């Protein structure tokens, strides 16, 4: 366990720093933007698709192929759907004359 922590120290540093960055980034958000922001963040965590692509790409048995394929589909849904929905929401905030 201890060895695991020390061998992944770089990642743990990143993890801690990113927590603070995340908090700093969205402090003082006007409530108007809560939902688009939630939706945008929702699309960003779709980055989990990369993991799905890795398991799919390395799949050498039936279980990994089936689950990997489903994971790729679901991950893509999250990413594409998430960004498109967010864009649709924000499109409405456009300044109009």
């Amino acid at each position, binding site marked *: 366990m201890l060895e695991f922590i020390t061998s992944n120290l770089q990642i743990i540093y990143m993890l801690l720093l990113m927590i603070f960055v995340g908090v700093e980034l969205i402090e003082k958000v006007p409530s108007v933007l809560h939902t688009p922001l939630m939706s945008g963040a929702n699309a960003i965590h779709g980055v989990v698709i990369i993991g799905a692509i890795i398991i799919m790409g390395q799949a050498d048995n039936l279980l990994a192929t089936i689950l990997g394929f489903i994971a790729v589909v679901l*991950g893509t849904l999250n990413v594409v759907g998430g960004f498109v929905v967010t864009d649709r929401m924000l499109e409405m905030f456009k300044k109009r004359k």
Partner: protein
Amino acid sequence: MNSHILQIIYLIGSLSFIIGLKMLSKPNTARKGNLIAAFGMTIAIIGTIFLYEGIKTTNYIWIFGGLIIGSVLGTISAKKVQMTQMPEMVSLFNGMGGACAMLISVVEFNHLLHEYSFNSLPQGQVIIIMLGLIIGSISFIGSIVAWGKLSGKIGDLTLKIQQLINIGLLTIILALAVYISIFLPPNALTYFYIIWLLSAIYGILFVMPIGGADMPVVISLLNSFTGVAAAMGGFLYDNKVMLVGGILVGSAGTLLTVVMCKAMNRSLTNVLLGNFGGNSSSSSKSEALGNIQEINTGDTAILLKYASKVIIVPGYGLAVAQAQHVCHELEELLETQGVSVKYAIHPVAGRMPGHMNVLLAESNVSYDKLVEMENINPEFNTTDVVLVVGANDVVNPAAKTDPSSPIYGMPILDVENAKKIVVMKRSMKAGYAGIENMLFYQPKTSMLFGDAKNTLTKIIAEVKAL
């Protein structure tokens, strides 16, 4: 060489997430921010497919197949969804991400069991996979339940000992996970599947008792869960872009959840325990609340036409009736008659924060007519007519006067300061919090019953006829 390029791509991807999220939190840069994050995601995905070591070219067909199916389905459903159903949609997409993280854990655990004999399993990896499985499953199932509740497919369900069951279940899940990670038992896979099942059940029980009005908070929380689950994947593959994206959403999402709770003046625990209006409602239901006065569309039209200042308070009723376009039409009509019209936007009016803004913006209401609560409240004093369109709890004076009320302490719109209040509602039914609204019984309040869209259309006709 390839792996170096990939690392640079991941670096750019991570940076685009940070910048994108930052820009998303400001109204005038938000849309660009979203596109920047999407760009980062695209290059990270393409980079992984072509440059990641160990991706078999024979599996390309599956990868691209999955990407195409997901993209088509995602785009269609995201384009087709009604503005009123946005929160459900977000919840559903969030669930997909959670499921993706969950499946990654399942495959990787099986993979580990193949590579190592059970007593030499790498503990750190087992823990990460376990966390990804638990959090991913809760997020997946929880989001699906939240989606079902928001779209009215699933009702609220509160068991008396719900909290006890939930805590018990979570304890068992964690205990099992710790047991597997420390002792690495030979039948680890069985335990693994039991944890999977229990996490899914926990996901159901976790969201089930939470009231529909609190769903946005829950979705935001589940959103940050999925972020953490994605970050677990980043840990597992030593993949920086997954780690950055996941943790950013995890921490920003948690903060956003807290901010949303604050906007409703409630604590997160309060939301999660699901006791919104559930407990204290039995008292004083049938007390003499006074009489209500009804008004018809003709009189309302007269009131509006001869007012000099009108404030419209939109609520969920407007969204349900899809009345935003008619509402905008009425506003324009009144403006041409020299009436000043504004909208008072309560931060939690509707079913999600910003719901009303999105809805009214959709029907081309100009941005500066939408006034936030703090800025509009001082203006009610000088307002002739307040037109409440399908809002209830956000204008309930009990939030200020009645300490026993479940919404006591929530900031509200001070509509009672206006000279005249017309409340458009479908019936006298209580709002989402399930409590009576004394505003309706005040002498200067008149009730106009009916579907918001029909009623507004009639009012427009009457104003024109005057």
